[in-house]
């Protein structure tokens, strides 16, 4: 599973560079999302509905926020060649901590507390993966179990109370645009910046691409992985804060019932990030999230059986990735 073996093609293709830029999945997924919007609009219109009303746009966007925040964080970890299955429980715990701290203390302390806790969780994940050399899948699954036990042992239901001022994050909007979108945008922008413009970002791609090669080139691969995990968990913390603001209190199942763990991974891969790491980026992930949100809204409009939704989701995810595989092969062929 580690690294990409460098397979040199005997004949150098001068246009390879340009084509590989064109074949960038990030572009593809946004086009796909656009297509889904258009198609959805038509279908819903035929069903006598209206997809792009003010409310729906608001809803589509605010539904993208939570998953979006988690997914962009997740894409960092996956880029670096790792994985995080503990996000769902971390969100739940985050909402609880947020709500409870706010019930007693100030909003600021709550935000700090949540982010601090998330960072700690991320640090733990990172250290277990790099230090104990436990496969990320198992390591984060383990931390997920640990968090779960902690939650179930300490909380018997919704707890805490989010101060009214903070709930603006969950409910305010500018025209049809929920303010929470700006939170997502800001976080995504920062992460995009980190991955593309900073050394850390380059090292993430390197570590994900070929851990050994990166290390030989003097990259502190372990440190990179740990940082990636911390950043991811911080995003999860942000998602938790948003959900807390939206739910008005902490909920022990806020993260798990929405399956944020698997959904975020799905969104990341949908966005064209290679599960093996080393390729992809934050922008694609956002596209993936939007696509899923639009699909959901369309299903709502057509009031499709919830069970059938899952079928479609599954098909979409597989089909998309299959498409990427084809592209990739055509490029390196």
């Amino acid at each position, binding site marked *: 599973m580690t690294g990409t073996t460098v*397979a040199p093609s*005997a004949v*150098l293709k001068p246009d*390879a560079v340009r084509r590989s830029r064109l074949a960038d999945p990030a572009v593809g997924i946004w086009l796909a999302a656009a297509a889904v919007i258009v198609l959805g609009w038509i279908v819903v219109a035929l069903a006598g509905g209206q997809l792009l009303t003010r409310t729906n746009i608001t809803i589509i966007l605010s539904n993208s926020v939570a998953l979006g925040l988690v997914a962009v964080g997740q894409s960092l970890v996956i880029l670096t060649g790792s994985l995080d299955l503990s996000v769902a429980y971390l969100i739940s715990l985050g909402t609880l901590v947020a709500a409870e701290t706010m019930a007693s203390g100030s909003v600021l302390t709550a935000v700090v507390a949540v982010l601090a806790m998330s960072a700690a969780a991320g640090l733990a994940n990172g250290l277990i993966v790099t230090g104990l050399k436990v496969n990320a899948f198992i390591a984060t699954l383990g931390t997920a179990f640990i968090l779960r036990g902690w939650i179930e042992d300490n909380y018997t239901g919704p707890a805490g109370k989010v101060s009214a001022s903070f709930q603006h994050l969950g409910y305010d909007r500018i025209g049809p645009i929920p303010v929470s979108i700006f939170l997502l945008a800001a976080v995504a922008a920062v992460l995009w910046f980190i991955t593309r413009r900073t050394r850390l*970002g*380059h090292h993430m791609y390197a570590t994900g691409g070929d851990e050994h090669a990166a290390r*030989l080139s003097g990259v502190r691969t372990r440190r990179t992985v740990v940082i990636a995990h911390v950043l991811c968990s911080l995003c999860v913390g942000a998602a938790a804060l948003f959900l807390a603001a939206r739910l008005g209190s902490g909920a022990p199942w806020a993260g798990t019932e929405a399956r944020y763990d698997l959904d975020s991974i799905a969104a990341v891969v949908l966005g064209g990030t290679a599960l093996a790491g080393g390729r992809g980026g934050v922008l694609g992930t956002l596209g993936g999230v939007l696509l899923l949100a639009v699909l959901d809204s369309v299903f709502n409009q057509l009031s499709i059986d919830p069970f059938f939704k899952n079928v479609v989701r599954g098909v979409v995810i597989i089909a998309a990735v299959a498409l990427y595989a084809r592209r990739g092969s055509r490029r*390196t062929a």
Partner: protein
Amino acid sequence: MTTLLSMQHVSKSFLGVSVLHDVSLDLEAGEIHALVGENGAGKSTLMKVAAGEHIPDAGTIHLDGTAHRFTHPSQAQAAGVGIIHQEFALLGHRTVAENVFLGREPTRRGLVDRRAMEERTAQLLAELGETAITPRMYVRDLSVARMQTVEIVKALASDVRVLVMDEPTAPLAEHEAGLLHDLVRRLAGRGLGILYISHRLREVFDLSRRITVLKDGRHVTTLLTEQTDTNAVVRAMVGRELSAYYPQRARPEEIGDVRLAVRGGGNGRLSGIDIELRAGEITGIGGLQGSGRTSLARALFGDAPFTEGTMTVANHTLRPTSPRQAIRAGIALVTEDRKAEGLALRQSVRDNALLVTRAIPARGRRSAAGSIGQLLERVRLHARSGDQQVQFLSGGNQQKVVIAKWLAARPRVLLFDEPTRGVDVGAKAAVHTLVRELAREGLAVLIISSELPELIGMSDRILVMADGRIVGELPAGAGEEDIMRLATASADREAVA
């Protein structure tokens, strides 16, 4: 000359097994210092200690007289020690510039400065006279030789003063090796100290000022190149004279009828291939890297099949479109990249040796499974037992396992792509003898080699390739010059690849 790098009394052991024992070595500015020794002699370990990839148990490392204790490659780099590994440390999905500056990205106001990165890369490439590579190309699109160049640029970019090169010419063809040699000399000319590991004694003698010989983790001797000769060095390496390097060639009566023939074979990379492989004969394929030698082997083996022309195997018309078909037809291919394509590294010797017969349980698998012992004996494999994982074997023994794997399948035609790459001198001879024996038993053998002495020494006749065609045939014992002349006749057109 001033001493640049000095390693004194270095020892290193893993889990109590000593790999390096009290080895001392020093390197002067502007010196090319060759390091030779059989596989397992501890060359690589020593180099890795120098480059900060291993932390020595004992001993000191001085650079310009100041003591260092590296715990991570980046520290060694910062101190000015660069290393080029046999296996490239390159990222296929990143650009040349990104690779060159990996781990040392230049920054402006905390941000990576792509501009600077690409300009500097271009500049360095220009200095090396490398025009075909541009900083924005993806490494995955480059040829091996060019990757090698990128590796060197990578080292230079961190303006190292000591450059460690671990068998840099192993993947290169003669004339590319030639270019590399010039490059290395120029670097030395600039005052860099170069530690040069190689199995190719000839280039060692061409290049180096001094030669240090290691054996079983101990320092045997350090000789001034002009005051010694090949035999002396080989003696120091293996502790014995290697009298006859290559076994007897085939006598005419030993050469039988045609086992495999291609007429007008061609595909994306090959064209107009006419070739006949005869029982008992070893046919050598010469040519430059990328001239289509490997492509030919892969085509014959059905891995990258011919798309045109006719092919007959043992008088049956058959153009294999998959390795499986080829194997069924009695063709076997010993690939050049043993670790990635020849072996399942974490499986036992037995499992590897039986892989083919298990994949295709057709002819004589029972006996193969039963006679695994004889099989290993047959290839003179000194494996502790058939249960040992092949990743623990030396390069030579690994190669023997690969050969055993094919012998178990009872092939009629045996294709070797770089049969002795990364194999130490002692094992080389063994492999050569084995290959000749197989020919004597009536197999048709084809050998591709970048090492001209090996090619000439082993082949009963030599076909030279260029541009995906066979450009000429030479009789046994042809000179290196003849081969190079044919191979480079169209070298200018061969520039890409």
